[in-house]
């Protein structure tokens, strides 16, 4: 297959970037999108040019680092698929493919297609954990959790922190990410103890980072590679209001 690639190139965080066009011949339909970029980079290196910088690690859809904005869709045209799981057979032969980094004030570009997603980490640091005295692992059946709840918690916990929700949102809001991280604790006894404090701190951090406000367009759910449901955003809103309403004054 042959493609024309239009890729965002930017030397560093402060440089002014621009699109560069690269014609690429003899691409195998079985190549993953990242393998296609490797193939391009090998050619660029052999021509003595700077290869395209992009982030990747697991290449199996679990680390969340490979997010690219491809032809107007985060992670490309396939739903429930990360960029590393996307294959060139999903494109038309001869197609022009435009590749951009995530665009959000809270995700500044570091180089080419790599953005700094540490704003997500800071949201987690604000409260995305459970404080426990680390000892022996407790007997698992001592805190029974219903199957329905366990499944829901797992549905939230599969978020890989890729940032596609922010990239897909016209408001570049991080509500789906924050909701998934809050929901994975809010429904189980271990997490409930600190639930009110957690939602308060994490939402505050999210707002500090400069993400946009949610207006329920649900684009995030559509483009989330893990299919995280916007139901969790409602859950987070509910937690948030009840946290505000029930906040106790310190003695």
């Amino acid at each position, binding site marked *: 297959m042959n493609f024309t690639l239009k890729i965002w190139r930017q030397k560093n965080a402060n440089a002014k970037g621009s699109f560069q066009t690269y014609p690429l011949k003899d691409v195998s339909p079985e190549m993953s999108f990242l393998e296609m970029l490797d193939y391009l980079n090998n050619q660029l290196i052999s021509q003595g040019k700077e290869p395209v910088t992009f982030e990747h690690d697991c290449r199996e859809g679990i680390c969340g680092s490979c997010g690219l904005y491809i032809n107007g*869709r985060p992670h490309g045209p396939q739903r429930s698929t990360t960029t590393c799981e996307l294959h060139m057979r999903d494109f038309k032969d001869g197609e022009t493919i435009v590749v*951009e980094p995530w665009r959000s004030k809270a995700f500044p570009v570091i180089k080419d297609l790599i953005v700094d997603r540490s704003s997500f980490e800071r949201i987690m640091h604000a409260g995305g954990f459970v404080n426990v005295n680390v000892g022996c692992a407790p007997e698992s059946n001592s805190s029974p959790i219903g199957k329905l709840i366990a499944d829901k918690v797992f549905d939230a916990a599969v978020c890989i922190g890729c940032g596609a929700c922010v990239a897909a949102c*016209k408001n*570049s809001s991080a509500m789906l990410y924050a909701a998934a991280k809050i929901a994975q604790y809010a429904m189980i006894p271990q997490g409930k103890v600190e639930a009110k404090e957690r939602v308060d701190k994490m939402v505050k951090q999210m707002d500090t980072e400069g993400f*946009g406000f949610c207006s329920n367009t649900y684009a995030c759910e559509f483009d989330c590679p893990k299919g995280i449901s916007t*139901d969790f955003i409602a859950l987070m809103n509910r937690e948030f209001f009840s946290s505000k309403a029930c906040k106790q004054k310190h003695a």
Partner: protein
Amino acid sequence: MALAGMFLMIFLIFHLATNLLMLAGDGGKAFSEAVTFLSESPLIKVMEYVLFAGFLIHILLGVILQLHNYRSRPVKYHTRLRSETSTFSRFMFHTGVIIFVFLVIHLINFFFIRLGWVPQPDYAAHKHDFYSVAVVLFKNPWYTAIYLVSFVFLGFHLKHAFQSSFQSLGLNHTKYTPAIKVIGTIYALGISVGFAIIPVYFLFFY
């Protein structure tokens, strides 16, 4: 935002119910009686201020939200976002601005007469005679056209807004949310069609 919006949505039901009295075929008797009754009721006098506050809060928050969101993506995408979203949800600010423009025209035509800010037209019997004012206005096809276009956009705004306000308040449930979405569509359709038939009736059948 959601609470103010919900309050406005409830207000629209009462407003529509009153307006539909114009179609009673009694030369506006029932409608005028309702208007006189309402404008003399102390409860409505209080609610008028609440309504103003509701609009003000909703519009102010809407503008703040839009500005903040615009700034949250300082560098825009080269390719337009192609994620599938409900169409109306993307244009809430735009439909909101159209409703706002309509609201200003609407206030000038009716409310300001009662306040005495706009001189009472000579075809109106008294400052509560909205019926005569409406009939004259709706006889004008341009005016009716502006009304109808506004109601179409109001319908678009409400179609997204109804379910959105529940989601924003965290009122989501696997069992009831699908019903909320259906009711929202019926509500949006009901409000815009309901308001629209009045000028159409006066333009063509009166």
